[in-house]
């Protein structure tokens, strides 16, 4: 893939880099701004071609990251590049918005130069970039060297890393995507899992991770022992540090970790999951006077687990007034700007059931159609259940071997969160 130029814009160019000089930057940027401001939001697509220039962009906060090319480029790579660029900037500047771009323009230029040359992506790993592009820039005294990692086979880790305390943190995070139809049947459910690591290990450690992976159990003949506990992961993706060939052979996950935070692996399970938090809504509209809601929610996981910070978001018509609520637990708030009520339950124990009633006034004349639409917005739920994974995945061991022979402590946490968790209203 090749990009002629990259722009960072909030519809007025903030910073741009014309890598190849084969496009007129101001014209292209003006064309892009026109597209964004004049195309109906419903019709906008992330990739479009105008006058032979192809624009592909991603939106982050209020910023657009735009790549322009004249060729039949590999668009998924171009978009990947833009995502990576955003990650690099985020890593450097924390929250990324127009102010942080403007405040750091010098370093942005440096980064734009290192991440792409003549339209071809170069180094995009912020950990590596940080080693030779620093905010302080005080390197007058020290002769800077391109990091070995740039040329090393282990491109994600530099040699000679030292930590006082050798620790590694492992978070197994599962997100539950769920769609329940108006009639209460589960239309689709899938689990997106990730094993996230924070590694603070010295030297060049060799790590080996053991999971209760069904296929591995089968391969090693442990079926009987692991009966009912093994998990069949459907599609696993690894960080580039994992030796893929080894995994293909004997399902061993072995790797040299990068330093700091990274996602070791992600997986997806497309299995039928019982909705962890079930919500039922009975709505009684009395046109022209009032509307009443009865919301019933039920936690469908083991009673020893607790869901934290549960938010049940129920859409209401846009023209309701004088809200009043009655609930057995938690607090309820009406958010007029989102046309919704939010029921907050700080701690929701497993196998419990709660009720909430909401009462609103309705204007005597109102837009019936606006009310019609309110039914169609689904109820969505946010939650976090610690010490629990829906899939049942477990870390069995994490072995750390380094030639200096230090003892390192692995810390493991499990958490299940809502993903795209929607229940349609009847």
């Amino acid at each position: 893939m090749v990009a002629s130029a990259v722009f960072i814009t909030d519809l007025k160019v903030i910073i741009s880099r014309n890598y190849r000089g084969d496009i007129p930057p101001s014209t292209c940027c003006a064309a892009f701004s026109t597209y964004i401001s004049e195309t109906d939001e419903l019709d906008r697509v992330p990739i479009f071609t105008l006058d032979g220039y192809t624009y592909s962009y991603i939106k982050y906060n209020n910023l657009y990251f735009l790549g322009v090319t004249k060729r039949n480029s590999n668009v998924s790579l171009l978009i990947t590049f833009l995502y990576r660029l955003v990650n690099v900037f985020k890593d450097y500047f924390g929250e990324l918005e127009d102010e942080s771009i403007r405040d750091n323009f010098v370093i942005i230029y440096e980064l734009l130069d290192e991440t792409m040359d003549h339209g071809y992506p170069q180094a995009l790993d912020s950990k590596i970039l940080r080693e030779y592009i620093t905010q302080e820039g005080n390197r007058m005294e020290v002769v800077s060297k391109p990091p070995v990692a740039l040329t090393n086979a282990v491109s994600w880790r530099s040699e000679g890393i030292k930590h006082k305390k050798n620790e590694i943190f492992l978070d197994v995070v599962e997100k539950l995507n769920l769609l329940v139809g108006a009639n209460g049947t589960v239309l689709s459910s899938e689990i997106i899992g990730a094993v996230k690591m924070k590694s603070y290990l010295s030297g060049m450690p060799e790590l080996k991770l053991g999971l209760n992976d069904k296929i591995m159990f089968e391969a090693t003949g442990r079926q009987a022992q692991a009966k009912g506990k093994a998990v069949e992961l459907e599609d696993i993706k690894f960080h580039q540090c994992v030796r893929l060939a080894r995994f293909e052979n004997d399902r061993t996950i072995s790797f040299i970790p990068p330093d700091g935070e990274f996602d070791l692996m992600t997986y997806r399970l497309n299995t039928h999951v019982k909705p962890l938090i079930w919500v039922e809504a009975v709505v009684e509209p009395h046109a022209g006077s009032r509307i009443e809601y009865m919301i019933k929610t039920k936690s469908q996981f083991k009673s020893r687990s607790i869901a934290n910070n549960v938010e049940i978001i129920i859409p209401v018509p846009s023209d309701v007034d004088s809200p009043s609520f009655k609930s057995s637990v938690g607090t309820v708030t009406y958010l007029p700007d989102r046309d919704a009520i939010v029921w907050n339950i700080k701690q929701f124990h497993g196998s419990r059931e709660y009720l909430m009633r909401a009462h609103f006034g309705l204007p005597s004349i109102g837009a019936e159609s606006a009310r019609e639409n309110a039914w169609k917005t689904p109820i969505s739920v946010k939650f976090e259940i610690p010490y629990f994974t829906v899939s049942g995945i477990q870390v069995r061991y994490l072995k750390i071997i380094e030639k200096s022979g230090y003892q390192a402590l692995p810390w493991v946490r499990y958490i299940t969160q809502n993903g795209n968790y929607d229940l349609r209203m009847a």
Partner: protein
Amino acid sequence: MYTATARSSFPGSNSAASPSTPPAQQQHPQKTGPLPPDPSAPTSKPDSYFVDAKKGEVNELRNLLRTFALEKTLTRKREIIKKVIAYMTLGIDVSRLLPDMLLVIETRDLVIKKMVYLYLCTYASSSEEVAIMCINTLMKDCSNDDPMVRGLALRSLTSLRLKSIIEYVVEPLRKSLEDANAYVRKTAVLGVLKLHDLGHNVDNFLPRMKELLDDGDPAVVYNCIEVLNELNADNGGMEVTRDIMLKLLNRLSTFNEFGLASVLNLLCRYTPADKNETFQIMNLLDPVLRTSNSGSVLAVIKSFLHLTNSMPELRPMVYDRVKPPILTLIAGGGPEQVYVLLKHVKYLCEANPGMFDPEYRQLYVRYNEPTSIKYLKLSILPKLASGDTAVDIITELCEYVSENDVRMAKLAIEAIAKVATERACQGATSTGIGEIVTGKLVELCAVDGGAVSSAAASALKDVLRAHPESRFSVAPVLGRCLRMGGEEKGKASLVWMIGEFGDIVIEAPYVLEKLVDAWDENEELVKLALLTACVKLFFKRPPEMQGILGRLLTQATNDVSSQDLHDRALLYYRLLKAGPENAEKVVNGGEQTIEPSKGFAEDDEEETIKALREEFNTLSIVYGSRSDHFITEKYRLGTSDAVQNVTDAFANSTVTPTPAPTLAPTPAPAPPTNNDAYADLLGFADTPPSPPNQSTAPPAAPAAPSMNLNKSFAIDGGKFQSMWQSLPEASSSMSAMSKTYTVAEIDSLLTSEGILTMASGEMDAEFKFFLYAQDNDTASTYLLQLVIDKMCEPRVCQLTIKTDTGNKADDVAKLLGGVLGNAGM
């Protein structure tokens, strides 16, 4: 415009300030604007760089730059340069500072160096002579001890884009290609391409570049592949040998995702030696599907498709293998990435029907998704419907209909109809699905008498053409729906259906009568549909319709609002006059239903699918059309063999695969009720209306003009020339040719039809013919000039006709068009 926009984006900047202050003021900077921050007080807040862009700013900067050498601390020096760059970022033209900036270039501070180099790369071309002064420093830095500086200097040196300095660049570049440090080497490799783009011959570097394909550093190799690809763009990319390919594949795991993608791209132009090798390569690629990068995953899919080209029996396994990774990426990716992936899913569904069928639930539309993704999913869902899942999918699609968004509702309705008209309706369950879809659409038809019911009516019409057996459940509600009103297109569809199934719609004549009586209130599409519907119904229920039809035809022929309408009414009138039996044959002649397994003709895109396989994982898939339709020629890849074959296939086929940008006149906008039978009839309407004295004659013969030309007619060159010069132009037209002929072929084809050649010749860009013919009936002579542009694809011919007494110039043109197989002549 650029400057103004950029400047106004920063609060406090004065957009009235002009960056180009007259040179006279240089020595006496205006004191009216606020002073720049006191150099002795270093700016602590970086955003203050952007606030004082006031009048005289560039001059202030120049003065600041002149104090640069006097500044003692590094921080302050940096502040000064940073200010210049800040102005540059704002879009203010600071190119006039070039000479002053050059004085600063001799610095040991890397931060300042980078900023000055950036400035140089931006403004060097504004003043070549001055910029050349920086060459020495840059060249010296190219041999600095610090590889970072070497790389930086080389990158800047090659990015200046100045032709005059090429001679200075060549030597440092050659040295850098041999540099011990990979960072410098990878910069040098791209430097070669930059020289090439400046128009310099880089053949001398090629041997070294080929060596670098073996470099120990993957980043160097990656750059090298891309550069060689671009240098050989005319041949479709760098030469791929078995040796190179296997070496690259063996170190596949060392590349980053971008390198990986470019190696895999090469693989798509490599043919493995034997089956064994193919399998080995595929095993090698398999782990890449485990990387969480959509670019690499798509690249592997493309490679798999390429490798199995000769082994179609493996394709199902390939599709099975690649499906889970795609779905995972869709479940977890950012919206833009998901958009691209879904486009690929859509393509795969078309190329390989059934592939994603079991996964249909994962492609359900979610409430929060961006509309680009929602709409895309709606176009994919009907493709996933099979006998078992169709009901689920239809139910789900119905959920979307009442969504807030009317566009969404319309698309959902179209999607519902597609479930019935596309391949899903094959096999035993076919009837069932037709019934279900019809039932849902009938429900929707009666919803609101607005956009939704109109869309449902149009969709219903399409479904009934594929499933005529469902008409019995539709017939009873048609009248009621029509009375509800709605949009033009929907009403026209309802009228069409009433005409088509008038025998079972009891109240049909009375429903139509109302519309006929309120003729002027109808929209054009409705009027057109009404015309056809009434004529059709007349054949089915003559006694009830006779009076209505009479009134209708009078009104329609007197209606001056639309030529099309007027002509069609006249046509029906004359047809009926010529005898109802014949008229019925013409009007009801064509088959109205469509073959369920085939779907509509416009949905048939087999050729495109084949061509797109070569361009998988590029923009072509996103647009669903080949790259030469949207990429300027200069930036296209040369045709590799594989692509060539496909293009050949196109040249030979008579169907234009996609809406190609030809010069052929676009066909007249077809009314919604159009079908084959009508298309023929409408062809008539294009011929000039017959003079009134001929109106008693039977309706004109079929569209093809019958010309009786004198095949033994001859005139000599002198006469031809004098006639050509004296006669006025009778007809001139332009059209695309679907076939490519040689001069001799055209000559013999035309002679056999009685169009004779006076002279012909081939020029660089065109064929030119001077032709003549004589009409046997009227003895009038026609002179023709035919110019065929051979640079265009398809070829375009331009025809000019002159005649002495004849009035059939258009018929001659049609005849010639017919002989040469022209489109739209």
